[in-house]
């Protein structure tokens, strides 16, 4: 364990000494941007995974900032092959370990297998491989780092980019208000595969994230955890607001934190009062161009989806006093 980094800050001792591992598996020296929510998430997810695990990672921001030959920021055995095939690579690692275990060629218990990829590598180009791996029932955990666009290539839109957001390929203009489609519901797609554990999480809620990853790892069969990763570079937001924005995403219900265990929905973080969506949109430059009709439409749609989620969780609806009186005239796909 000496070769692993070790958390030594006094804050760590104060807040987390008895709950969280001190070992650092995602070490310093990686090249992520200032305020990167994803790097924060990776740090805590790798702690939750524990030492006895193998990680397969997709091409993307996190791969590029952490694995420039001959350096690496990963203390786990780690493999990167390509952009769209991480779930397939993880399937192979898991199957390979299984046969080695059966043949008595593994010295210890079978290591856990974790696949990681960005929102593009998960919900766009990697969706087929992920669907195949979930359908086949491999014993692995897939973690999606969702920073809501192709940040590594220069902030192009993905199917996970939220409605109205400005990206370099969904720019606002005389005939456009930015991204014209609603964010793809990757979590629902994972749930539809009938896998035993699906969750959303955020590094702004570290304990929630940590214990969800632990659950996912310990669940036999496929597990999927969708992590919202605030990206100051792509979201055009102040770098010191990354943790705050992750909290606002949950507090405005645009990214509620919940888990689906064997098909049963549980809200894991229920705000006493849902905040208006403007609180979340305003600090982000990518939404700066939006006018009231679009913001009202986003507000209506967010609450509509949150109500659906509450119903699935069997929870009563709070009041939403900030809702606009009538639906805004913006059409999706316009």
């Amino acid at each position, binding site marked *: 364990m000496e070769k692993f980094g070790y958390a030594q800050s006094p804050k760590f001792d104060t807040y987390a000494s008895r709950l969280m591992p001190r070992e650092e598996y995602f070490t310093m020296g990686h090249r992520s941007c200032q305020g990167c929510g994803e790097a924060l998430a990776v740090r805590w997810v790798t702690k939750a995974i524990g030492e006895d695990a193998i990680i397969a990672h997709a091409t993307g921001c996190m791969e590029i900032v952490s694995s420039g030959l001959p350096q690496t920021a990963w203390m786990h055995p780690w493999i990167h092959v390509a952009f769209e095939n991480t*779930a397939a690579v993880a399937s192979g690692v898991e199957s390979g370990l299984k046969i080695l275990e059966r043949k008595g060629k593994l010295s210890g218990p079978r290591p856990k297998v974790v696949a990681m990829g960005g929102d593009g590598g998960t919900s766009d180009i990697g969706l087929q*491989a992920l669907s195949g791996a979930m359908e086949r029932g491999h014993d692995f955990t897939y973690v999606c780092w969702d920073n809501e666009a192709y940040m590594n290539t220069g902030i192009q839109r993905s199917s996970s980019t939220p409605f109205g957001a400005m990206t370099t390929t969904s720019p606002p203009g005389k005939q456009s208000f930015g991204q014209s489609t609603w964010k793809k519901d990757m979590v629902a797609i994972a749930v539809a595969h009938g896998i035993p554990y699906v969750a959303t999480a955020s590094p702004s809620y570290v304990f929630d994230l940590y214990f969800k990853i632990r659950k996912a790892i310990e669940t036999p069969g496929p597990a999927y955890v969708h992590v919202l990763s605030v990206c100051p570079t792509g979201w055009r937001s102040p770098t010191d607001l990354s943790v705050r924005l992750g909290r606002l995403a949950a507090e405005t219900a645009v990214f509620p934190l919940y888990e689906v265990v064997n098909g049963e929905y549980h809200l894991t973080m229920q705000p006493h009062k849902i905040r208006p969506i403007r609180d979340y949109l305003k600090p982000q430059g990518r939404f700066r161009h939006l006018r009231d009709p679009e913001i009202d439409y986003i507000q209506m749609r967010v609450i509509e989806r949150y109500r659906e989620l509450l119903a699935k969780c069997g929870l009563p609806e709070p009041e939403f006093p900030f809702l606009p009186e009538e639906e805004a005239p913006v059409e999706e796909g316009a």
Partner: protein
Amino acid sequence: MSAKPAKAKRVGMEVSIAVSHAVQLARAEAIAAYPITPQTHIVEHLSSLVANGELEAEFVNVESEHSAISTCIGMSAAGARTYTATSSQGLALMHEILYITSAMRFPIVMTVANRALSGPLSIWNDHSDIMGARDIGWIQIFVENGQEAFDHSVMAFKIAENAKVLLPTIINLDGFILSHVVEALEMVDQATVDKFLPAYVPRHNLDPKHPVTMGAFAMPEIYTEVKMNHQVTLTQSYDHILKVWNEWGKLTGRQYQPVERYQTKDAKILLLTMGCLSEVAEIAVEEMRDQGLPVGLLKLRLWRPFPFQDLREAVKGAELLIVCDRALSLGGPGGPVLSEVRSALYPMAERPATVGYIIGLGGRDVNPSAFKDIVNKAQAEVSEGLKEEFHLYGVRG
């Protein structure tokens, strides 16, 4: 043919089934595959061997060939002996990952049941699939009949897994006209194969006790050096390939060469073929020899690493070399084999006139008379002076 062959059983068997038995005898531990004609019989039979407990392996039915080769990488990275098979569009879909497989040095063995590439869609045999994957950095071998398919499927694991090689290996066998025919061949028993091919011990694998990062990206300062390393390893794998083939030769009495020669003594005219058309060409060579024509046949078995010296040796003394390609490099120099052979012979002070004929595309039948016709046409062409870069033989209209 000097050594005493090991205990051998001669059986009649579909060549695809023979390949799957070779993989079974090699004790492959992990297989990921996706169905594509005409490779299917190989993996169907392997999956039934696994289902019946006759092969202790993980068989993963993936959702595409792209995932098949990606899953194989994962299996190999975990430390398992890994096998897959594909054809045509499947190989094309794998394309991106094939380069990565060899660059990351995973000794995966793959059978390619060669088939034409679409479009138009054709399930029938030619070499256009593998010729699109010449530069993937794998060892690539062509076989001519069922016995060779069996032998090379076993040997491929030993070549690939050599610590000084560690490169994935493709065995090319012609779809349908080889993969689906029943041939008489000698199987080798399990004890002999076990002795020949010990259990796979990976040099690097994903192990939490010894964590490594695989597949890091390279900046311009190091990319060229990584590529040079790969190039040198692939070129030098030649010696290990021959060593394994010689060992197998001593064991079974069946000796293989990078460039096989048939009736080449005193031959002034040489045909060059790959894969199972070689057997058809042999018949034509026999008949032409009977008529007094000094014709011989070269069979290019080792495609990567390219056997430059063997080829240069083999064409010495010949006046005319006719390269028969089974793939078309559209808008280019005709056949890929032709262009490589021409380039390989170019530094020779005295070299044969080299002409190219493209035959048997998309399952078009090639019979012995076609080779005789080609020899006649090529002779006339050379005496009159070359007019065309290459010929697409037998094209109608």
